[in-house]
Each structure stands twice: as structure tokens, then as C-alpha cells.
């Protein structure tokens, strides 16, 4: 799960990481009022979950409240990579002496959290990684100990190159890791962490992603979720316990298991078709899940055929079959459906599916994919 910058900054503040004060508004007039309260030049920042808002024109400086109103009205309603801007953050414009990058991420390779820092803040870390890899400092963290003060101090010294500034910076690094750990984050990023001309150290931006598997124990974070900013189908899928990603093709896919779902998409493309989605119905699928999966897929009118590729494991094929029967009974389905069921209880499943004459059976994955593509054409 991702949250907006202003929400991440609320969490930063709770952990004692200094952020410039800011106000979130949803209208240009409120933006003007907020800027008037600041009483200094402000930055108007689009609050979107996608990246790249700066390049898209979603961040603008305003010298006066009137200008803030103008910029906010330009930004609000803007489309950034498919996401409509509904909120802007009005925050004091500070005089920057030095921009730094700091982040905590999960390093799969090391199987440990990694604190990364670069003295070249403001730039995307991927760009720094390519153009100036030696500028990236890395400190791996043993989660049993957290970030040792000495490690934070060494990293801060390498980034700040100034013993006096290194102190507050080391403190921020430790707090950022503590936050990352305690809230089950998968990414906690400050870019830029700035040194102001009056030598304050401030998190000018804030990015937090969370481990979806851990949200159950953080109801306060779950409440931060911005359903407006997410794809409706994806939100609904999540509520039903499904993994769903909308794509642009015409073959709707219902698969159990992420790997098999990806391989199925790959195979659709391989045989010249276009998958309409990634959809993993997961393990132990209840019949209602299948109903939900179908209705999410059918919201997309470009879908012309539906492909079920189910290989039993924890998932029992008879459950899936019952789900299909129930779904077809409920939904007055008009599209052709290709079903391939293999594995645990597959015989029982075929018995059940015989009740529904509209189903195109297939024995292998290749056969099923080819049939679904043909039926979508």
C-alpha cells in the first residue's frame, strides 16, 4: 500500500523526523488561505500515489497567496499518469543549501533492510545508481539490532560532510529506520532531505510504502488508504482477497497462483493475443471469490473472452467448479469461457462443470490459451 506525501509526513512527525509545516487542501481558495497563513512563499504539491509528479508539472512554487490559488487551480484536477489530482499540499518554501537522498528498503538479495544514502538528493536514486554509483552509500541493517548509532553516524558523516550537521542527520536516519520497522514499511524514502541555508535539516518530501501482508496489525495505517486514487477493480479485488492488475487486452484471465497467472499472460501474448488483466484468485478459493473475480473482469467492456487456468494445490478444483456454476447461475454470462482445471479433485470438478453447457473445456494450458484467443477475436 502507498500513502500520500502528506500522510507520510504525518508519520514522520510522529517519529520525530523534522518536516516543514504544511496544510492539505482540496480547493484553490483553501490553497490561498493556507498560503496566507504561512505568510511566506509556498510550494503547491500535487498529492498523488504515482511517481513523477514533478516532471508532470504537479509541483509549483507560489510567492503570494494569490499565486498559490492560481497554481493550485492548475494542479487540482490535473491527470498524472492516469491519476486525477484531488488534493494539494501547501507547504513553506525553504532556502536549500544541500539536497540529500536517504531511504530504507528491503534488500531481497541480502535478505536484510538496507539504508541507502546519496549526497546527490533531489535526483532519482536509479539515475544516481547509473551515472555515479560510487555516490551511493549503503548500510545493511540486522533487524535484531536496528541501526546502530555508530552506523547512522558514519552514514550521516558521508552524506553531510560536516560533523555538526551529521548529528541531526544521524538522528533522522535512526528514526527513519525505526519508523520503517515499526510500521512494517517496505520503503521509507526522503528525497530530498535538505540542509537549509540556515543549517536546519528537514525532510522536504516523504514516501512510504507498506507491506500489505502486515496491514492487519496496523488499522491506523489501513485507514490512510486513498481508495479514490486507486483503480476501482483493484480495490474491489483486494477486498475480495484477490490480486488483480488491469491491463489493456481482450482476454480476461482467472488463474490461481501468481507465477501461473504471469505464465498464462505470457502465453496469451506468445500466441498473438492480449491479456486484459493479471488475476490471481489465490489459495483456498471460496466460490464467492470466483463470482467476484468474474464481475471485476466483466466491468471492462473490452474483454471478449474469459480464460480460467486452474491448477489445484491448496485450491481444490471442485470448489472452483462450484464457484463457476454459482457464478454463471448468478450472472447471466454472455461471453465465452474457456476452462482448464487440473490437479486436486479434478474429476469431481469435471462432474460439477458438466452442469453448465456454455463452458469450453481445455485439457492443456496451450490449448486453453489458443481457444480463448480465438473466441476473443
Amino acid at each position: 500500500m502507498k500513502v500520500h506525501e502528506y500522510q507520510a509526513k504525518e508519520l514522520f512527525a510522529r517519529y520525530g523526523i523534522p518536516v516543514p509545516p504544511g496544510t492539505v487542501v482540496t480547493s484553490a481558495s483553501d490553497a490561498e488561505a493556507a498560503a496566507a497563513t504561512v505568510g511566506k512563499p509556498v510550494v503547491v504539491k500535487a498529492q498523488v500515489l504515482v511517481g513523477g509528479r514533478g516532471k508532470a508539472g504537479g509541483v509549483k512554487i507560489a510567492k503570494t497567496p494569490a499565486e498559490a490559488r492560481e497554481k493550485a487551480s492548475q494542479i487540482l484536477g490535473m491527470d498524472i499518469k492516469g491519476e486525477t489530482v484531488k488534493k494539494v499540499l501547501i507547504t513553506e518554501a525553504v532556502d536549500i543549501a544541500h539536497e540529500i537522498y536517504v531511504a530504507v528498503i528491503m534488500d531481497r538479495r541480502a535478505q536484510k533492510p538496507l539504508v541507502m544514502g546519496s549526497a546527490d538528493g533531489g535526483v532519482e536514486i536509479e539515475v544516481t545508481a547509473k551515472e555515479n554509483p560510487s555516490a551511493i552509500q549503503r548500510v545493511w541493517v540486522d533487524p535484531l539490532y536496528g541501526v546502530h548509532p555508530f552506523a547512522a553516524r558514519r552514514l550521516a558523516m558521508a552524506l553531510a560532510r560536516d560533523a555538526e550537521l551529521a548529528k541531526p542527520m544521524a538522528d533522522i536516519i535512526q528514526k527513519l529506520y525505526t519508523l520503517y520497522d515499526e510500521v512494517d514499511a517496505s520503503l521509507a524514502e526522503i528525497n530530498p532531505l535538505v540542509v537549509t541555508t540556515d543549517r536546519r535539516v528537514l525532510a522536504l518530501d516523504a514516501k512510504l510504502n507498506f507491506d500489505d501482508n502486515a496491514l492487519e496489525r496496523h488499522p491506523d495505517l489501513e485507514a490512510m488508504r486513498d481508495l479514490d486514487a486507486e483503480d476501482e477493480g483493484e480495490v474491489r479485488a483486494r477486498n475480495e482477497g484477490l490480486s488483480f492488475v488491469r491491463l489493456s487486452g481482450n482476454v480476461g484471465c482467472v488463474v490461481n497462483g501468481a507465477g501461473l497467472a504471469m505464465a498464462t499472460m505470457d502465453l496469451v501474448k506468445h500466441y498473438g493475443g492480449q491479456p486484459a488483466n493479471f488475476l490471481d484468485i489465490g489459495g483456498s478459493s471460496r466460490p464467492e471469490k470466483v463470482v467476484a473475480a468474474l464481475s471485476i473482469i466483466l466491468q471492462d467492456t473490452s474483454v471478449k473472452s474469459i480464460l480460467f487456468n486452474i491448477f489445484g494445490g491448496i485450491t481444490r478444483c471442485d470448489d472452483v467448479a462450484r464457484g463457476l456454476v454459482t457464478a454463471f447461475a448468478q450472472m447471466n454470462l454472455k461471453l465465452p469461457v474457456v476452462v482448464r482445471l487440473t490437479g486436486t479433485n479434478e474429476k469431481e470438478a469435471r462432474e460439477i462443470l458438466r452442469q453448465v453447457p456454455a463452458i469450453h473445456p481445455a485439457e492443456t494450458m496451450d490449448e486453453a490459451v489458443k481457444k480463448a484467443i480465438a473466441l476473443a477475436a
Partner: protein
Amino acid sequence: MLADSRSKKGNRNVSMPIDRNTRLVVQGITGRDGSFHAAQMAAYGTNLVAGVTPGKGGSKFDNTVPIFDSVHEAVDATGANTSVIYVRAPFAADAICEAADAGVRLVVCITEGVPVRDMLRVVPFLKERGARLLGPNCPGLIAPNARVKVGILPASIVQPGSVGVVSRSGTLTYEVVYQLTRAGMGQSTCIGIGGDPVIGTNFIDCLRLFQADEETEAIVLIGEIGGSDEEEAAAFIKEKVSKPVVSFIAGQTAPPGKRMGHAGAIVTGGSGTAADKIAAFAAVGVPVAKIPSEITSLVASAAPALKRAS
């Protein structure tokens, strides 16, 4: 007095993790999945010696298998050396630690949705005790020659033989194994390592096992996008694996920046893409199947003696 934690350090040897000496305890045996798969494992031939569900100690599973309140009691009473976990995600990390603390040597965690933060603490705990973890969020493993399975891999799709299969996926593994079986290429052991960011046993661990395993003559490795496990596996194959290896990578058409399901497969700019992984394998001479159904023919040409042998 309660026994102190049973530290048994070191000796992570390279014998296959399951065989006829496997004595299995099922954690969460009274749950829906646990009871279903416990019966499946026993029916296949696995030596199921105990079940654990706190508060249900003293009862029996299927009228024969004793159920205990803790893994420690199960191990003490039955000599269980292997555990498989079907408990709910919030309790899975503790169940893994409990098994290792009780002296179990191999812990297989089927449960999906275990928070990464929990796993970061589980992995060193098991390492300290010298126990091997497989998973979480994995289908487990099956050894058709010994007729032992631990996990949820369907027994109906496997066949005794000499192909070792290792995979980050669940059902995609079944698909590949099923195709191997239909092509007459039986399997020595099939291992699903799970696709989560933090796992107990990785590709390299399994490649080392297969390389040392006398029953294994060829290896199929099924990867997916995200992380760098496949790239590391390719480097390891170059150095240490003399047996033929064939691979397949899922997610070739996945759009960048989108997380594809629970598996944690995510493509982020420039690294962890299917193209990178395919290139890494190609560079060390490992054939990569374009589609799953191509795997069997690649195995047949990489290990021509194989089909006759099985």
C-alpha cells in the same frame, strides 16, 4: 521444568531434505487446509507421526495420529524431525520458530501472507538452531521415488524419476511437473521455494542439493520476475553445477512497476526483469524455455539419457 531451547548448531548438510527417514508433524492439523493436506500426505506414503493444535492436545487426527498442544511435546513423543505449517499468517512466524526450537530439522511453511518483518526475525532464529526453512508461501516439496511429500504439491501429477525441479511459483510448478510426467520424465524431488522477499531456502541451496543428489540427473529451474535470485543462481550454476539445467521465467509480459500478486513479483526499472534473468541464464549456457510446454523438449535435448532411464 521446561526444557531450554534446543540449540543444535551447524551441520546443514547437502542430503535431500526429505526421504524415507522423514517423520512429519503437521502444525495446524485441525484446520481446513491442515486436515485436508495431512490426509493427502499420509495417503501418499509420508510418515505422518503427529499433529499440533494448541488446546487440542490429547485428541487424534483421523483416529490414528496423536495431536499435541505444542511441537515440543510432539517431538518428544514421536521423534518428529520435519514440520509443515498450515496456520494463519499472523501466527505463522511463531509456528516456524516453535518447530525449530523444538528440534525439528526441516520446517516447511505453506502459509501465505506472512509479513516480511516477521520473516526477518525468523530466518536468523532458524539459522542459530541449524534448522532448514522452506517457504513461507510455498507449496512444499515431494520426492516421488521415496513416496514422501511435505506440503501441497498434488501427488497425482508426479512420477518417480530423475529430474529435480525447483521453483519460486506454486501452481506453475505443478504445471511444469505435470508436463514432465506426461512426457515420461519422472522427478527425483520437486521443491517450491516460495516467492516472498524473505525465504528460508533459495535457488542456490536447492541447486547445491540437486548437484549432490545421486537420484538427480537433470534440473529444471522455474523463476519469475523480481529480485535477483535467478541471476545469482545462474552465476552459481556456472561455478558449481555440472548437471544439465533448463529454466523458465514467468512474467515476460508483466508491465513495469506493478506488483503481480502475493508472490512479491515486482518489476522495477532496469533490474529483476524477465529479460535480465533470461540473459543471465543464456550467458552461462542454461537453455531458457519460451513457453512452459517447451521445457520438456529442452530437458530431453540437455539430458538425452534421461527418458530411457525412467
